[in-house]
């Protein structure tokens, strides 16, 4: 996974997908599914079985999935819905005896497909529009201390956005999944393409970004 270490260098971390998913989450502890009595159903506690696994994965992967969906252009108001729908389908998948060898990939794949279906049905532009960019620029600037740094940060973000806009959709998808720590083979499975296509797309994308930076 591409991560920034304390020294600012990029280092690669890898662990088994499920373990990585758990470690990645905001709350990785074992949690039972304690239902609110206001739902009117029951005060039933589900502390084992597929529900527990799904809740653990939800807690672990919710934020990475949010980040991925936002970055591929899903409108923020739809993201939580896609995330929840994905994990509900995961529950059905597990209950139906589906394969559980790489659930993290499975979750991203289903979320990716759901987002494509939603975007297609609503005929929305996949990439974020200028309005959203202004908003993102502002949110980034809020954390910068001085006006000069704010301006530099804003220019930097716009510059990266412009460079990303020059890439193909496939190259952007491969980059974003790589940021989420997926291996080439897993990216290929999620996007339904071959591993060599993934390697080629990443190479072309990175080379292009490097050249534009120079």
């Amino acid at each position, binding site marked *: 996974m591409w991560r920034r270490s304390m020294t600012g260098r*990029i280092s690669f971390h890898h662990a088994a997908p499920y373990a990585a998913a758990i470690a990645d989450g905001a709350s990785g502890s074992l949690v039972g599914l304690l239902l*609110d009595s206001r739902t009117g159903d029951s005060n039933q506690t589900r502390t084992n079985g597929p529900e527990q696994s799904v809740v653990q994965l939800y807690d672990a992967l919710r934020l990475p999935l*949010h980040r991925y969906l936002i970055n591929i252009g899903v409108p923020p108001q739809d993201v*939580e819905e896609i995330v929840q729908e994905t994990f509900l389908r995961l529950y059905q998948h597990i209950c139906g005896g*589906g394969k559980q060898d790489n659930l993290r990939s499975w979750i991203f794949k289903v979320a990716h497909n759901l987002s494509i279906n939603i975007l297609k049905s609503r005929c929305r532009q996949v990439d974020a529009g200028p309005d959203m960019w202004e908003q993102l620029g502002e949110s980034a600037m809020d954390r910068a201390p001085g006006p000069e740094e704010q301006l530099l940060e804003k220019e930097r973000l716009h510059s*990266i956005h412009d460079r990303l806009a020059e890439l193909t959709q496939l190259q952007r998808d491969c980059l*974003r999944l790589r940021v989420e720590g997926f291996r080439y083979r897993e990216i290929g499975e999620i996007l339904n393409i071959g591993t060599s296509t993934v390697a080629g797309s990443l190479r072309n994308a990175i080379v292009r970004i490097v050249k534009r930076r120079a």
Partner: protein
Amino acid sequence: MKNPLRRRSNFTDSKIFSGDHLPDEALIRLLDGELSSSQADKVNAHVLSCWACRSRRQAIEDAILEFVDHQNTVAAAYLPPSSEGRVLFLARLNALAAELERPSLLKRCFDRAIHPVGIVAKSRVVHIAAVLVLVAMCLIAYLIRPLHVVSADEILNRAIALENTSLQGTSRPVVVQKIRIRVGGHSMTRTIYRDMTHRRTASQMDDALAGRDAAKAAYLKSALDWDSPLDAETYRRWCNEHAKGGARVVQRDSNRITLKTKLSSGVVTEADLTLRADDYHAIEENFRFEDQSELEIAELSYEVVPFSSLPKQIFELRLASSAPRLPSIVKMRPMLPTSAELAQTEVQAETILHKLGGDLGEQINIAVTATHGVVIDGVVADDMRRKELASALQGLAYTTVKLSTVAEMAQRTASASSIHATPAAVQVIPAAPPLLDSELDAHFPDKEQRDTYVNQTLSMAQIASARGWALNRLVDRHPAASLALLDDSSRRELQELLIDHVSVLREDIGSLQKQLSQILSKSSDTLAANTAIPISDAGSTAQADEDWQERVRRVHSSIEAIHEAVATLLTSSPPDSGNNAETIEVNLRTSLTQVQAELQALDEELHKEVLK
């Protein structure tokens, strides 16, 4: 610990070190942990010693770093608080879990139906009565159901029949169908040409590489027929193979009917085929997979045109079309071997036959055809010999062995001749004594000794002739074009086979020469007969540059002449055949000397260089 996800790609060492510096992909794969440990070591070692590559790696790292920061910044503003949405999700999950654990719809209906009654009276009689009422209602609903129900199977039958009818008005009809395939956000278009007369298909695809890959992957996953999309017959066949229940018919609107098939197992969960209501023509196909992705095939255009209106080369391009490889579970058409594979197999077969002496006079032929592969047929002495040869040839790929025994052939000939043949009149031809009769008598007064000598000499000539013939057959079977198909290993194998024949043949000819010197007259033992014509001066300048194949042909021809001469000199010949013993003897001596020289030159050539 070995990383289970680390799969080595086809990124070979040669790609890493193709020049003085590392390619970008090597550096990116190094950072991504997608190189093998040995490759990573090499790349790291190079980076340590090369400032240019080190700075490029740093630039790539910086670009990645910037991209990761950018992605985090973009998403940061929209990441929800940890509690937000979680409560809702837990409630939805609980509802879903309860839903999955709920009783069946029938039971729930039944419970609802008897619920009011249950309040009034919970007796067994009331329960039974409620059940009877429900059954009666079901019966009534069944009896008053709409009578004009068309099954999916019937619709598919009509679709198949109407498609055949639409072809009838055109001579040599070719269906030209343009379709769009969408899968996972990718899209591609294909134009398919189906020659309905000759049952062949060709297709052209657009250049959307990612779409093509995704489409092929989806086809592979669902075991669909790449050549027959939007085809009612193919859809029915696929459903029969994969779905347990039949398809459900849904009228989408007044113009379209959709056949929906749900599958309980496998990667495809739902398969739909949409047809036009007025002519039952398939216009759309939709496959939904277990991972919620979809494969959509939609028709953009469809027309039936005569074959003559299309360019002829369309169907010749079929081999170039990149149809997806089917998984092993799918029934595959047999793959025909390539010409190179057949040529290599032939050399292997020849070597095996040579080791068993099957290439020396036995009636065994090797034929190679593109459709039947390597066919070895012929007649052998008995069943034991047949088994010996068949078991040795058994492991060869693309090879068929059809050997008969002499007894079997005799039986066949007898049964054939019993029908057609008439007994041939036997004509007795008086034979003259051998040309060297007096010399034989002089050297071998004992008749038995004479017969032994004659038989032995004839046998030696015959063996030499058989080996010369085998050598010549190898040359005939492997002209320059065939040699070009062989790989290095097969070429070496053939070379060793030729060298073996030549070296044994040299010994055979030497022995025959010695054997004949006992009986041939002194007068024929001239200097000219015992001096070989120098090979380079043997004729025109073109001969000096000749290849080894030409030399083998000349050796074969000379050995045949030697065999004939020996037979003429030592066996009875028809009277007045006009043979002159002295001339034949001189020619025989000359041929033996010349063949020895040719074989020596051939042996040197074959040892000197690789066959070409």
